[in-house]
């Protein structure tokens, strides 16, 4: 079990540094959060656009998947890594987001994408408040159990209302790709990947800003010691519910991005396995830092792919080959957690530290 307490993400590194690079880094850190995060997001967005301009359509889809997984995991990061509430059912909010998006596209095709995204956020935040308020008095395994029940039960709604939600076949729809003005410049898949990343990065900016501000401090105080936080005058229940709300909103938005990217919403995409994968990816990426969400998302999409390629190249028996990717992920998770308890982010910052000291 990874302790949630042995890290402090906001503690600034105050050791004096020499050299121009260090000076730049310090000046960067000195910028207010509201400038720093949007700038970083802009840079990341530019990098994604540059990347998709050289990749093919199949790869664009994967890059887009990394984007929405990152958003979902970042929301979970805020909830688990920062406020210390363990949710095993975050796939349920992705489910809500994806179906809201699908229903909007099917029934209100004239609504622009950004409006759909905003409505999705509103709907999933509302669901988050309901669940958060209902579970605010639960913590630890009880909360985990309650959220797990949500992830198990919610997709069954589709079978309950087959007319509206398409039963177990789900909903399929076509989304509009790049606008005609850009028809020759970007392909449909590049446009989709860019839209998903833009949404995910905006969401991430909000999450990071929240985390750097007063609410973030309150959440960390809660995570570290609830009674002490209450004694210090922090409204425990309200802070917990707000954390749940924000995290549900990002989960829902991630689901909407998935629906937009794939043009479908089906119950079988939102099984308990999804919720558990999100959690595993979060732990693998690193608890307690937004970078962890990025590495976790990359691992979620690509480790399985590499596992498949490995299985292909080894020419194993079908049963072994088919299950190898998941084993591969599991082994990687165990190894990383054993060696770097802070996950992939911990590994990378450790390596970066070694390089810096070596210079």
């Amino acid at each position, binding site marked *: 079990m990874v302790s949630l307490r042995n890290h402090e993400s906001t503690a600034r590194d105050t050791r004096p540094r020499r050299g121009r690079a260090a000076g730049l880094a310090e000046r960067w850190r000195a910028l*207010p*959060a*509201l*400038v720093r995060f*949007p*700038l970083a*997001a*802009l840079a990341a967005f530019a990098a994604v656009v540059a990347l998709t301009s050289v990749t*093919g*359509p*199949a790869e664009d*889809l*994967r890059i887009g*998947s990394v984007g929405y997984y990152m958003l979902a995991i970042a929301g979970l990061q805020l909830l688990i890594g920062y406020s210390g509430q363990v949710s095993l059912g975050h796939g349920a909010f992705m489910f809500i987001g994806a179906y809201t998006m699908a229903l*909007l*596209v*099917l029934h*209100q*095709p*004239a*609504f*622009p*994408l*950004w409006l*759909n*995204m905003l409505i999705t956020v509103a709907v999933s935040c509302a669901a988050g408040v309901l669940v958060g308020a209902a579970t605010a008095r639960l913590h630890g395994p009880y909360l985990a159990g309650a959220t797990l029940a949500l992830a198990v039960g919610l997709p*069954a709604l589709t*079978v309950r209302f*087959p007319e509206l939600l398409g*039963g*177990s*076949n*789900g909903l*399929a*729809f*076509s*989304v*509009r790709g790049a*606008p*005609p*003005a850009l028809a020759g410049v970007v392909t449909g898949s590049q446009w989709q990947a860019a*839209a998903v990343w*833009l*949404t995910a990065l*905006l969401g991430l*900016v909000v999450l990071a800003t929240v985390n750097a501000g007063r609410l973030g401090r309150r959440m960390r105080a809660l995570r570290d010691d609830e009674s002490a936080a209450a004694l210090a005058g922090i409204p425990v229940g309200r802070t917990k519910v707000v954390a749940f709300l924000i995290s549900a909103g990002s989960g829902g938005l991630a689901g909407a991005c*998935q629906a*937009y990217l*794939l*043009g*479908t919403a*089906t119950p*079988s*995409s939102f099984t308990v396995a999804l919720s558990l994968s999100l959690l595993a990816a979060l732990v693998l990426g690193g608890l307690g830092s937004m970078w962890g969400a990025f590495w976790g998302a990359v691992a979620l999409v690509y480790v399985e792919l590499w596992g*498949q390629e490995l299985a292909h190249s080894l020419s194993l*028996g*079908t049963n072994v080959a*088919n*299950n190898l990717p*998941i084993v591969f992920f599991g082994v990687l998770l165990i190894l990383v957690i054993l060696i770097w308890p802070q996950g992939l982010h911990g590994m990378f910052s450790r390596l970066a530290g070694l390089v810096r000291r070596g210079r």
Partner: protein
Amino acid sequence: MRRPIVTLAGLMAAALLATSCGGAGEVEEGAQADLDVSTGVTEDAITIGTHQPLTGPAAPGYAQISVGHAAVFDYVNDNGGIHGRRIDYVVEDDVYDPARTIEVTRDLVHTEEIFAMLGGLGTPTHSKVIDFLNEEGVPDLFVSSGALMWNRPQEYPLSYGYQVDYTKEAKIQGQYIAENMPDAQVGHLYQNDDVGTDSEAGLNQYVRDMVVASESYDPGNTDLAPQVAALEEAGADVVVCSCIPAFTALLILEAQRIGYEPQLVVSSIGADTATLTGLLSEFAAEAGTEDLPAEQLLEGMIYTSYLPSVETPEDPWIQLYSEIYDEYADSESPMTNTTVYGMVQATMMAQALMAAGEDLTRQSLIDAVESQDWAGPGLVPFASTAEDHGGFSGALVSEFHADDEPEVLQEARVTDREGGDITEAEVERPNPDEVEFYGG
């Protein structure tokens, strides 16, 4: 604090502008894909792809389909290939998850550059890629599902069905019951999706007044006790099961447990007796009753089918497939009717490729499929004309016997999915050596 907010507002405005060009759901009319191309065809190879559930809940049973495909293609390749080209067969695992289906299908089309798709499996899965395949101009042959949507030539000109659709099959079952068991009290057990609704639409055309109970199940919940109890309570002495194999087996076991013995009438999707025997022994072992005679439990089961079955070892196609399976299939499990299902698909694919000739393009394949007079392994006529992409267009009714070949109760009959009549069909079945599905 003013500047940061300006930055943030600017970013938001840019994002809104970028995504505000028109509604999210509008799709402009795309141009018809160019079919005079030979993507995936080289001097010496043709790449054929498919998406199948190789892992996950749908894998047991269905994973045999791609085993069948691969074995037949290996056999074709070892016998001269298709006009000198070998078939490169690529199967991708989609875990029966539509999101994964979309991903692997794009991969197949863009990265593997397949010439055509063969037998993509599942309604929830394949329905999510049918638009994409038709837009990209990829021939989408013989979809492994009985849903109605594959047969929409206007909308999806490149998609062709395979399985007899659920409504047609249920009409034939309904007529059989009405004619041969006029006093029956019919119970219907169906899967809670298009399998169920489409079947019910067909069944009700013939036995509406005889139905005493209609029960559905959700594939995620393996407890059938309430449904079976309701069927018994309603006094159903004939139970029509529009189910997948696992639920046919569960129905049989649950009925056995409470001492209820209705006559079963099972759809082709749930009546693979080889798979059922395996499932019954497995479920019985889990329940702690190992000495349950699985085959005896299936005795007397009536089912509809359109393909030759492994219980008829004298059939020339089954003989050929058994030889192919023994030689090429890299599998520990025995050949089942699901394997045969895949093998027939692969045989028909090879037949179409042979007929398309040496100058292979996607258009020539489509032309070959639509002009093909499908004489081959199937037991009922096969429709793949320009107007009808329906696949196998009927079924025959058989009864299972534990120690003997199945008894054919009613020869092949065909019908439509609407209110049309059911008519007897003449099928000419050539032997394997009379069919061109490999060679130079």
